[in-house]
């Protein structure tokens, strides 16, 4: 089966003043049917432009884009309209029509698609039921909370039963709890309706909660992409690592290490926790086997796609040779980082050992 979205060498330049700005720079991506595909990057990284290229709200300067086997590049505006109607789009600011009721908003794309009144009404009722807003049908958007507005946005985007839904920072204007509700709704859209979703976000927690695949964008380029778990487990780029640390909070910063040192005289190591090894059980087992005392001083474990990920930072106390043997055996299973002491500290520690 072909990919739902396929981008090949896509670039987009804007002419702002004299120098053209390259918002999207030679991007190639494949988004498979059924994926919840995250595109993450800082603001200005080009992700919003990229998603607007997919439904041709913007036209690519070069490259080819195919959505659901229909090319969207090299088409006229008129030809693109039916193509856009087959792609749902939800916005950070919801962009609801304030002059229409909730039902009127959801019915709008159906009017555009020339559905009869009876079919429209039936479809609107069905969609409002799905997003849990049946009782709000006659209300106006300014009577709704942010989360409810985004639910209306989702119902509206799904009205014409698109196979692809694009979500541009769909939860960035919402509080954490409402964000969770909306993400759960999007997950249902994916699992129950089988809609492929592209999620644009600057929050790695959104990607880790919802997506199975992710692309990291930086300065218009896709610098890294793959399975969300793999990217979390072994990020290759600095920008990716920075995003991951915001979602996991599991690795101590140099400042934290310094503070840990003051309280903990032993050797300090961080052990990565992966589903392939380095789990808590494995750690306990190895510590016992090598006769080393370990106490957890920092860390966190979460799960991504029901697979554990994170790291634990331990203070190890025992004979140096035992600790070295322990670390060697752990390194066969997972990543281990030992923080070197500064020379002054080492001396103090040696004295302590001598005593």
């Amino acid at each position: 089966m072909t990919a739902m979205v396929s981008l090949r060498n896509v670039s987009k330049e804007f002419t702002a003043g004299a120098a053209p700005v390259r918002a999207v720079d030679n991007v190639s991506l494949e988004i498979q049917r059924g994926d919840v595909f995250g595109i993450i990057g800082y603001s200005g990284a080009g992700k919003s432009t990229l998603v607007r290229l997919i439904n041709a709200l913007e036209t690519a300067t070069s490259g080819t884009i195919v959505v659901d086997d229909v090319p969207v590049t090299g088409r006229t505006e008129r030809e693109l309209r039916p193509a856009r109607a087959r792609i749902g789009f939800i916005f950070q600011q919801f962009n609801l029509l304030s002059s229409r009721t909730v039902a009127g908003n959801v019915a709008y794309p159906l009017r555009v698609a020339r559905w009869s009144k009876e079919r429209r009404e039936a479809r609107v009722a069905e969609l409002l039921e799905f997003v849990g807003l049946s009782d709000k049908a006659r209300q106006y958007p300014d009577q709704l909370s942010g989360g409810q507005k985004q639910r209306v946005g989702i119902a509206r985007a799904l009205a014409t039963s698109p196979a692809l839904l694009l979500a541009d920072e769909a939860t960035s204007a919402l509080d954490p709890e409402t964000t969770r509700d909306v993400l759960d709704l999007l997950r249902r859209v994916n699992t129950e309706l089988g809609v492929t979703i592209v999620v644009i976000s600057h929050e790695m927690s959104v990607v880790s909660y919802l997506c199975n695949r992710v692309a990291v964008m930086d300065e218009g380029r896709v610098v890294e992409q793959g399975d969300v778990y793999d990217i979390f487990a072994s990020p290759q780029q600095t920008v990716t690592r920075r995003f991951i640390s915001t979602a996991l909070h599991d690795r101590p910063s140099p400042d934290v290490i310094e503070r840990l040192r003051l309280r903990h005289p032993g050797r300090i190591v961080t052990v990565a926790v992966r589903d392939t090894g380095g789990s808590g059980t494995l750690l306990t087992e190895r510590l016992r086997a090598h006769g080393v005392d370990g106490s957890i001083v920092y860390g966190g474990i979460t799960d991504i796609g029901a697979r554990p990920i994170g790291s634990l930072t331990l203070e190890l106390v025992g004979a140096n040779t035992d600790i070295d043997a322990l670390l060697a055996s752990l390194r066969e299973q997972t990543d281990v980082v030992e923080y070197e002491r500064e020379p002054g500290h080492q001396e103090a520690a040696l004295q302590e050992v001598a005593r």
Partner: protein
Amino acid sequence: MNDGGQNLWPLLLVAIGQTLEMVLATLVIGGIAGLVLGTLLYASRPGNLLANRAVFMVLNLVVNIVRPIPFIIFITTVLPLTFAVTGASYGTRAVIFPMALMATFATSRIVEQNLIALDPGVIEAARAMGAGPLRIIWTVVVREALAPLILGFTFLFVAITDMSAMAGAVAGGGLGDFALQYGYQRYNYAAMGIIIAVIVVIVQLAQLSGNKLARRVLRR
């Protein structure tokens, strides 16, 4: 209220009728034409739905040239055109033509300014749903801006009432003409006072109903 033994009340009633005729006809004709022109100005602006630099620049220029012309001068300037269109060069009907023309240009700016204030995100949403530009303009842009447009038209009503006072220049009749003939030129302050009161009442009623309608559209 009389003038040298002549009872002015029936004349006042005729004048009120003429003013209302002028103002309402102008409001309808100039309002619709102005809505179209203003929407064209908005839509043709570079970056907007029907972006067309040439069309925008021409429309913009014409509006800018016509608008600052004082209405009393405008009436006389377009007289030949008025005669060609209405077949008359004086009277109430004849003055409606220049009034509607001027109102069209004035309205177009009011409309344009209200449409520009609309959140572009809403238009983007409609585009993303596959709607074409004409549909978006009518069902999204104008509809979303309806409340401020109604207030704009209310403002216009007052401006047109003001305009109608100058109809006397071409014997157009109405309250302005009446005030000049019987009040100003004959020092009849009582008549002046009554006319002012009548105009104030008309404007108040218009403003009240405009506000009410706008509030109803906004549901607040």
